[in-house]
């Protein structure tokens, strides 16, 4: 068990491409940190730098109290679970688990004890004599986890370990990984592009974009107070609606055209208003809020997903698409005009140029 301290870590590839542009994260002992971001955001590179599989261009990396920048991966006291499991195909499950211990010179009896214990925790005891190709995807995933557990390392690194599993198994393994990590209390760094996986697993989320940290925080914090429009649209599904607003004679306008009924006290002349699909309410179905956002939505499509429906539509002159997430099975015709409203405390405001969140003081006035 150990903390991991990432200080201003940078990675520049030979061609001059900057994959990681100065990332700092303090990971506490036993914490489960999820790195999340779209492909190419540098999350895997960052993880591989922690593992020692990529060299560090600049910055400092501490595991425990030890500076490990130039230490070999095997000597960093970490274990990694790979996306494609990376099991040794010619070895039995037992030998797959035992290989790292053998190389470290553990006694045979100790190896046997640890392998059996890990196999018991992961319920793969009956497969120990099988080869990886005789196992299903979920079982292979367990073996890959077992290989990390037997080593009893200071930290686990997960590189999108669930992305090769089918949807149902993914949900199940997600829960198990979470449970296991809590039981073992091992510091974990987990990379994923799946925001749902990130939300459910993390003690703290690190949202990355373009090699830089967009936001670090607990999943709920990140969801409720996204630090930028990038985080706002990346976390949450369907994504947060963003409305570009500009002020003209005290009236907020969308797209320089439609007047939007929203009361904001700010000196800014332009901003981006964010509102989550579930915070928009269709007036015909529910009560109308006196304050907040009021606008008209022209329905383009309705997607029923069972317990709720996603109503897609446009506002303004049809140039801004928004989604409303409403409970129940709804039927609206395309072209129908609906009035939608949102509570003032459900609105997010962002600087239009930088995309950063701005907290407006006493944001909304009563109409």
């Amino acid at each position, binding site marked *: 068990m150990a903390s991991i301290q990432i200080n201003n870590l940078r990675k520049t590839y030979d061609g001059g491409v900057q994959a990681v542009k100065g990332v700092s994260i303090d990971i506490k002992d036993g914490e489960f940190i999820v790195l999340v971001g779209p492909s190419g955001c540098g999350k895997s590179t960052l993880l591989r730098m922690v593992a020692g599989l990529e060299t560090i261009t600049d910055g400092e990396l501490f595991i425990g109290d030890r500076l490990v920048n130039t230490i070999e991966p*095997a000597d960093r006291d970490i274990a990694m679970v790979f996306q494609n499991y*990376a099991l*040794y195909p*010619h070895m039995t499950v037992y030998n797959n688990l035992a290989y790292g211990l053998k*190389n470290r010179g553990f006694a045979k009896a100790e190896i046997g004890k640890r392998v059996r214990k890990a196999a018991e925790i992961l319920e793969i005891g009956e497969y120990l004599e099988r080869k990886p*190709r005789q196992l299903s995807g979920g079982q292979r995933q367990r073996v890959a986890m077992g*290989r990390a557990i037997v080593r009893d390392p200071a930290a686990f690194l997960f590189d999108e370990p669930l992305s090769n599993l089918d949807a149902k198994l993914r949900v199940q393994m997600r829960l198990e990984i979470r449970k296991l990590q809590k039981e073992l209390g091992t510091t974990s760094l987990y990379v994923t592009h799946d925001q749902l996986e990130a939300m459910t697993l993390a003690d703290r989320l690190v949202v990355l974009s373009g090699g830089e940290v967009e936001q670090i925080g607990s999943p709920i914090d990140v969801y409720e107070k996204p630090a930028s429009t990038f985080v706002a649209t990346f976390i949450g599904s369907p994504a947060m609606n963003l409305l570009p607003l500009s002020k003209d004679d005290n009236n907020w306008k969308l797209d320089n055209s439609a007047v939007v009924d929203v009361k904001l006290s700010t000196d800014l002349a332009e901003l981006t208003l964010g509102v989550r699909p579930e915070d928009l309410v269709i007036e015909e179905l529910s009560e109308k809020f006196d304050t907040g956002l009021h606008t008209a939505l022209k329905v383009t499509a309705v997607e029923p997903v069972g317990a709720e429906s996603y109503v897609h539509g446009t506002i303004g002159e049809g140039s801004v698409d928004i989604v409303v997430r409403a409970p129940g099975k709804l039927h609206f015709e395309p072209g129908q005009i609906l009035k939608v409203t949102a509570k003032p405390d459900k609105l997010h405001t962002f600087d239009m140029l930088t995309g950063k969140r701005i907290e407006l003081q006493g944001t909304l006035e009563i109409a």
Partner: protein
Amino acid sequence: MIERRPLLSFSSHVIMVIGIIAVALPVWITFVAATHTTERMLVSPLPLLPGTHFWENLKMVLFTQEFLGTTRAPVWLSMTNSLIIALSIAIGKIVISLLSAFAIVYFRFPGRMLFFWMIFITLMLPVEVRILPTFEVVANLGMLDSYWGLTIPLIASATATFMFRQAFLTVPDELLEAARLDGAGPLKFFWDILLPLSRTNIAALFVILFTFGWNQYLWPLLITTKTEMHTVVMSIKQMLEVAEAVPQWNIIMMTSLVAMLPPILVVVLMQRLFVKGLVESEK
């Protein structure tokens, strides 16, 4: 293709039978000739059914040095020579190619691609093309009439290096990374992971290279003068060139028969691995 047309299956069987006859007939004639006396082989028409002198001919071929007045190596000795040479060439080629492919695929060193292309370009220079300079080198090193001279110039192999390179490239990088995290150094990774994964490729190459070494003719002919260093393929040819005498077809054919056995054995014994090695892609 699943079709039930009697005429089609009949004609395809006819074609297959013709093919089998074309391949098997020369072997059959060799076998038949090896079971008759020299006299019978000089009378027309040639026999098509086996005679009764098989063991007699076999004994004579294997152990007699006198052959129509000239001394030659008995076939058991030339067979041993061939075996040593074929094994050394096959094993030597595999070991060297494995190591050079390992270096080229897994290590970043200056001039890596240069070396790769240099090895690759030697594909264009088979033994026959560079035979004179190679002979000069081998002669200067005093390796004429020795197993060293017979094998070393044939061991360097671009083909096998290239094959192993391709095989190693299909091994996922994650496996190397997992091994690194498991504390395996480069040689341990090579020995514990890469070699077992290349098992079928090695077997396939062994079959091909053993046959290649066994069938060497020009190079042994050039650098051996002592009869006790002759290979079996050479002896067959020399039996045909006995001055002022009628070739002893029964003996020659028996020698051919015996010479065919080891490559056949290697192919039969390693066939399962051989086929796997050529078609398998899953790692």
